[in-house]
């Protein structure tokens, strides 16, 4: 077994889960996005998305801020530096292995 394949065991399981990977990848490609945008873009149910965002926030990969735009409440999500770092590491491992 080559070293690249063996490194697959090191992937971060928090973002290896497809739904969370989708959320983190999407947040890495934008400055910030709100809950509704993520819900629409990923196709995840609101409950599911909420659970995944909580896990990502607890892990320190995503920062969540509740605010308003006019009368409309926004739950703004941003990827943290740590989240970006972990995503890049994940990409490197997967790309090397495949």
């Amino acid at each position, binding site marked *: 077994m080559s070293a690249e394949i063996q490194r697959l065991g090191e992937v971060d399981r928090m973002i290896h889960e497809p739904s969370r990977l*989708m959320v*983190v990848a999407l947040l*890495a490609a934008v400055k910030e*996005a*709100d809950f*509704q*945008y993520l819900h629409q*873009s990923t196709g995840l149910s609101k409950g599911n998305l909420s659970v995944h965002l909580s896990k990502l926030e607890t892990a320190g990969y995503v920062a969540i801020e509740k605010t308003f735009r006019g009368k409309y409440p*926004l739950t703004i999500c941003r990827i943290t530096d740590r989240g970006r770092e972990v995503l890049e590491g994940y990409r490197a491992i*997967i790309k090397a292995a495949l």
Partner: protein
Amino acid sequence: MKDDPKVLANRLLQRAWNRDGLPEIGSGLTFLVTGGLIYAQEVLPRRSPGQITAILAFAFGLPVVCLGLQPMVKRVRSQWLIQRSGYVEHVPFRKRNYLWALAVMAIVAPLVFLAVNHEERLLLPITGALGALLGGLIGWRGRMVRLMAGGALLLVSAVLLALSSIPVQIGMAVLFGLQGLYYLITGGVVFLRFMHDER
């Protein structure tokens, strides 16, 4: 997961951008206006106020409309559709991408000029091919069949118009008109579906 997360994210962003049909409606209207202005330049009496207006609008108005389309779509969304489409702040367009676009234009524009100078009717298939390439690429990036079909329709209609006996400028007006109509219809249908989506 077999896709690179970056590729996956770009696909999701492209799909999100086209989800409500507004960019297509905007493009459709722009294409229709373009077709109308080309037609007006061709059929109105030479140097009449109407023809001069059409020429000026084509030369100066259209570029402004094209550049303003994206900000306009964003503004409409944030003003009236934010509860449905959600809020997103994109990263600014990178300078490297502008340079790429300029480099491609610097190569393609002289080639098109030379070809059209050699045979004017080539303007139709060349426009069709470039439009089809652009539509195909955007459609493929977001895996959106309707955009790829739009590109194919543009190419087929351009070739058919080039083979017909219609004058080139009228052919261009018909080409843009057809494309505008197509995007207006697909964009309209997508918009209506988006507004009725209860998700």
